[in-house]
């Protein structure tokens, strides 16, 4: 046997060499910066606006980048489903907007109140007039709780009412109501709105989670579960809808399709629906409410919305592959506000950001953009505590698994749950920093 021989010095030399090699492999954007004096304004410093700002700062030299957003807190919204199932505390989703913003950008902590796409100015709620050369609108969407008659947010958490979309404290209150239901049983009613919505899987996740938790609490035989939705199918992607239909049957969850929640009587614990045969009423012991969702007022008032599509919702009229506005070529839509057929998720934002970044920089450099968005959306569909399906798809309703052959999209897996639990927030945060 040959013996390994090395002097101490040789050994430490080797170690130092290894360290140097590691340092050289450190990540970084190798592309040269583009010099420009362009004034870029981004409305909304949520998932999309923040990620874009971080990437633009790295790519542009001399640009004047301004973000407009009144919200002090940044919300990691995918975590709300976990908060509303008692799996995470409310502060799991909360950080500060300024925590994520790079040096060299200006944040105006006010709302955008008016956009004039002809004069290329944005007026803020405090009356500031901000001129731009390029504008990115990323203000997310608004939840129209008033559209549900008899319901208001102060009811959440009592009398069996949940509404986890409304924010971290409401998600925590939703868990109070849902937990009480899981311990006493009765009729659980789970709803979703007729409009487009962010994370179309979330109403299903909540249903699955509360059903699982009720089962674990030993109360499943005393509880009924019912899912009521205005759509004709349980999910927008047919193959996924079929899978969910089978899972619902397996888990004993009933459905009323083509039923839109119009109001509740909180005292009587009765919900009213508009259905194919007119108005129907259903009694409940627990109800989960997700209200209709629309583009923020400022978008609809500024003439940026589609005139002939989603007229009650007002999403931004833009090309579905470039996200550039169809009438104003200095404006891009990013994130939930974009009027595209799919993609109101943070996962879509991750794919949209490089497209808007490229479109903007191409416009500055006077070349044609090369990046396109194919409608990629991902939804880690939690089916019980400990298991999920990692569902990813595009505009064509094609499944687009990230790990084909390894992680089956339509199988309930522990690894998919691990991804949601461990990797999703980390990936989201890395995206905010412009690094994923």
């Amino acid at each position, binding site marked *: 046997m040959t013996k390994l021989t*090395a002097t101490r010095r040789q050994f430490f030399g080797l170690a130092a060499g290894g360290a140097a090699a590691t340092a050289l492999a450190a990540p970084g954007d190798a592309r040269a910066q583009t010099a420009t004096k362009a004034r870029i304004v981004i409305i909304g410093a949520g998932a999309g606006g923040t990620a874009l700002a971080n990437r633009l700062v790295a790519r542009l030299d001399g640009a004047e980048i301004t973000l407009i957003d009144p919200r002090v807190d940044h919300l990691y919204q995918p975590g709300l489903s976990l908060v509303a199932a008692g799996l995470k505390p409310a502060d799991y989703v909360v950080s500060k907007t300024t925590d994520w913003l790079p040096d060299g950008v200006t944040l105006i902590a006010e709302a955008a109140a008016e956009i004039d796409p002809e004069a290329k100015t944005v007026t803020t709620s405090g009356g500031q007039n901000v001129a731009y050369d390029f504008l990115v609108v990323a203000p997310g969407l608004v939840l129209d709780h008033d559209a549900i008659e008899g319901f208001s947010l102060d009811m959440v958490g009592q009398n069996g009412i949940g509404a986890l979309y409304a924010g971290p404290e409401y998600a925590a209150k939703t868990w109070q109501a849902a937990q009480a239901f899981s311990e006493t049983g009765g009729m659980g009613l789970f709803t979703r709105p007729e409009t487009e919505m962010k994370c179309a899987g979330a109403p299903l996740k909540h249903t699955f989670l509360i059903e699982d938790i009720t089962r674990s609490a030993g109360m499943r035989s005393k509880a009924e579960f019912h899912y009521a939705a205005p759509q004709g199918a349980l999910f927008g992607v047919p193959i996924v809808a079929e899978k969910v239909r089978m899972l619902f049957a397996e888990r004993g969850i009933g459905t009323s399709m083509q039923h839109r929640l119009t109001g509740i009587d909180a005292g009587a614990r009765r919900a009213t629906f508009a259905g194919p045969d007119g108005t129907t009423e259903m009694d409940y012991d627990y109800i989960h409410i997700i209200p209709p969702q629309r583009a923020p007022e400022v978008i609809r008032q500024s003439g940026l919305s589609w005139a002939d599509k989603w007229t009650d919702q007002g999403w931004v009229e833009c090309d579905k592959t470039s996200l550039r506005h169809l009438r104003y070529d200095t404006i891009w839509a990013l994130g939930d506000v974009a009027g595209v057929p799919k993609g109101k998720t943070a996962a879509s934002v991750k794919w949209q950001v*490089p497209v808007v970044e490229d479109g903007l920089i191409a416009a500055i450099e006077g070349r044609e953009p090369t990046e396109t968005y194919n409608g990629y959306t991902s939804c880690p569909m939690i089916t019980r505590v400990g298991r999920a399906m990692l569902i990813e798809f595009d505009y064509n309703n094609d499944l687009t698994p990230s790990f084909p052959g390894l992680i089956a999209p339509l199988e309930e897996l*522990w*690894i998919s749950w691990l991804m949601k*639990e461990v990797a999703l927030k980390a990936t989201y945060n890395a995206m905010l920093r412009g690094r994923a």
Partner: protein
Amino acid sequence: MEEMTFGTIVAVFEEIFGRGLFWIMVALAAIVTLGYVYVLIRDHSISWRKFLLAQLSMPIGAIAAVWFVLGMTSSSLGDLGGPVDVVVFLGIAAAGAVGIAILVYTIQSLVRPKQ
């Protein structure tokens, strides 16, 4: 995921543990590995007596790793749903076992050099 580059993976791990903790852990793992290589080179051979104790510690490392991951992710053994889950599960156990074996061997060799 769009681009699974080395930089993305590092960024994601930095977010999971926090930047400081992640790099401290990487440094610790590197130090232990270097220590292991160092004692191998210094002693010119593997000490089978030390290796025995290292081997005996392996199940502890495996169980600790699995227990840690299950605890951190609110899941249980019953959640394993498909072949890939079993592979990941065994991978976690194996990593724990090998990690602790190297650690135990290195500590023994550094504390009680060649007898």
